[in-house]
């Protein structure tokens, strides 16, 4: 048999549970307790409303650029909800919903997008990496975390997110391949939202699905309706338990859509049609899930108002945050402050003091973040010994 097909053939599955009206295929309905269903829906609403609020804050100049998630709530929450607290969650830059689920406080996230490094600091017991901006670079970190968990004998699973565009980067490939070879407990959740800024999927890759990319690495890939929170949950749960049982990685492709702007600097009308957006608005994950919950009598009244109050409180506490103290920029470059940084810090401090001293008595000093002070020269140059040559002092 000189020309033969290599067996077994490779297959990729597609999974969906809810149809667009919230009707259920009960054969694949994941067994989720009602309270968990309610919590999921609540989180979807919170994520949606918080996202909308952030957009307004950005438009008002109160925070900087960020990447809205509208439309991707099911993909994020259906997946992250299958993790334990002791598992690891590794986001890219568009996982507001997943981050909220994992316990990132909204104030912190606002701080982050307002340019404060404080907003990217996980708490000591939090097994989450912060927002990662260079596309795909977080994927090998997840593989390393999973390797380390296995190395230590911990039964933690790592879930890592990226987008459809991210699958084109070399780091995606290297991470997937390492995961396959090392057989580590990691779940790759790809939110295929059809666009990478202005690049549609068909210009991103010639493969029909993202899921089939897993075939190149010898582990399973599955495609799910990413606007169907139950399907995402079912596929993620399967992947997480596969990982936990020592059966290696999985790629979960969530087919979804970014309903809003790529980031607040983006104008999507330049590259896609209103009809396309409208067709996906009809598949809104919140609408579908709420229709399902409605049928099951699990919808809570007043949910929107509740979460809005929470959001309002977070925004208030964010806005009450003191200005950033520039001097702390020297604190975490290294575990210890190096002598050169100590010198640069001292010089900065002197500038502030000098600036404060120059002000007319009684005037309040600017907050350090608005310093416009001048003081003598720069830092780090060790003091020179007394002059040896002869030099003409300036304008002597």
């Amino acid at each position, binding site marked *: 048999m000189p020309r033969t097909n290599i067996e077994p053939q490779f297959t990729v599955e597609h999974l969906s549970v809810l149809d667009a009206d919230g009707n259920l295929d009960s054969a694949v309905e994941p067994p989720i307790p009602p309270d968990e269903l309610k919590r999921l829906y609540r989180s979807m609403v919170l994520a949606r409303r918080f996202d909308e609020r952030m957009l307004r804050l950005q438009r008002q100049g109160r925070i900087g650029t960020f990447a809205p998630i509208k439309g991707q709530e099911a993909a994020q929450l259906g997946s992250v909800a299958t993790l334990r607290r002791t598992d690891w969650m590794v986001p890219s830059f568009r996982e507001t919903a997943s981050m909220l689920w994992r316990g990132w406080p909204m104030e912190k996230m606002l701080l982050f997008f307002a340019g*404060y490094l404080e907003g990217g600091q996980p708490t000591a017991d939090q097994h989450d990496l912060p927002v990662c901006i*260079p596309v795909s670079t977080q994927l090998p970190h997840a593989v390393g975390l999973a390797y380390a968990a296995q190395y230590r004998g911990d039964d933690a699973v790592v879930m890592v997110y990226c987008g459809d565009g991210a699958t084109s980067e070399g780091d995606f490939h290297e991470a997937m391949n390492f995961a396959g070879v090392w057989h580590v407990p990691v779940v790759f959740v790809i939110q295929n939202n059809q666009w990478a800024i202005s690049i549609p999927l068909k210009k991103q890759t010639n493969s029909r699905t993202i899921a089939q990319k897993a075939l190149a690495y010898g582990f399973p890939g599955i495609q799910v309706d990413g606007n169907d929170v139950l399907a995402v949950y079912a596929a993620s749960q399967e992947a997480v338990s596969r990982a936990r049982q020592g059966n290696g990685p999985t790629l979960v492709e969530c087919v979804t859509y970014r309903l809003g702007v790529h980031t607040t600097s983006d104008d999507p009308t330049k590259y896609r049609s209103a009809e396309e957006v409208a067709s996906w608005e009809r598949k809104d994950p919140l609408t579908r899930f709420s229709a399902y919950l409605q049928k099951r009598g699990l919808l809570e009244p007043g949910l929107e108002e509740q979460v809005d109050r929470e959001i309002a409180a977070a925004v208030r506490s964010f806005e009450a945050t003191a200005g950033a103290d520039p001097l702390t*920029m020297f604190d975490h470059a290294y575990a210890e402050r190096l002598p050169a940084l100590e010198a640069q810090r001292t010089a900065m401090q002197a500038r502030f003091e000098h600036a404060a001293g120059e002000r007319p008595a009684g005037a309040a000093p600017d907050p350090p*973040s608005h310093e416009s002070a001048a003081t003598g020269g720069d830092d780090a140059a060790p003091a020179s010994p007394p002059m040896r040559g002869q030099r003409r002092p300036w304008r002597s």
Partner: protein
Amino acid sequence: MAKLNMVKALNLALLQEMERDPDVLIIGEDVGVDGGVFRVTEDLHRKFGSTRVVDSPLAEAGIIGASVGMALYGLKPICEIQFSGFAFQCFHQIENHAARYRMRTQGRFGCQMVVRMPYGGGVRALEHHSESEEQFYAHIPGLKMVIPSGPRNARALLASAIRDPDPVIFFEAKALYHAAKEDVPDEIETMEIGRARIDRPGHDLTVVAYGAMVRVAREAADRLHEEDGVETEIVDLLTISPPDRETLAASVRKTGRAVIVHEAPKSFGPGAEIATSIMEGAFLSLEAPILRVTAHDVPFVGFARERANLPDVPRLLAACRETLKF
């Protein structure tokens, strides 16, 4: 002659060079329909179609690597890397290949290509969107490295970079994109790569700057003139590599004092070469140590602390006065 900001001026250079030479093409993320995230390639897609203005998959090494191949074939790709902070993803293709192909093949092949990228601070950006990485390219033999300081020289230098037979890394200061407009002539203009400009003549002190820091230098020079009666000579480097050592040395042979200002961190940064080059070329004229006013030696500080990290007029002024008092 039209009044253009830097974005429009760069766009004009691209348009005219593409009209002039069918081998010139553009490749990058979102350079097509979207016109680039800073709109520098706006409308070119409509004019030249998607085989000449190529929206690539999201992969920087692929962009540079494929462009190297195109250049070896004889095309003249202009690559856009969306932000300089993402260019380390393709740094190996630049260093291993773009910079070396001419040498490796002893002149049989060269890489006539330009790699454009926005760099620098001042736009309230997230991590990797405000850093200044010019030093990394300046140290690679086989490359040239250009940073314009205004619309008109940006346009002329970009045209020259596109025509240069060697690979040119072309940094565009984000803070200047929409800053001042300048008169830019309609007819094509080029400008020699490798030449610094005396942005302002003076005899008391030399300030070396480039990119967005030229504005800071100008403001400091104004204040030194007004408040101290000091005449500052501003050298606007324009080309980082190869540096115009003659102009640097000549200025300091005249003034005896120099301050260098850049947004990159200080240690092992571009200021070190500039200072050393000045010392080599004007040693006996130096009346004071050359000072560097730069970002601090720390990673990204967040834009809430950016002003305190990047050089500003007060800090540059203070350094100038310290130098003058020495």
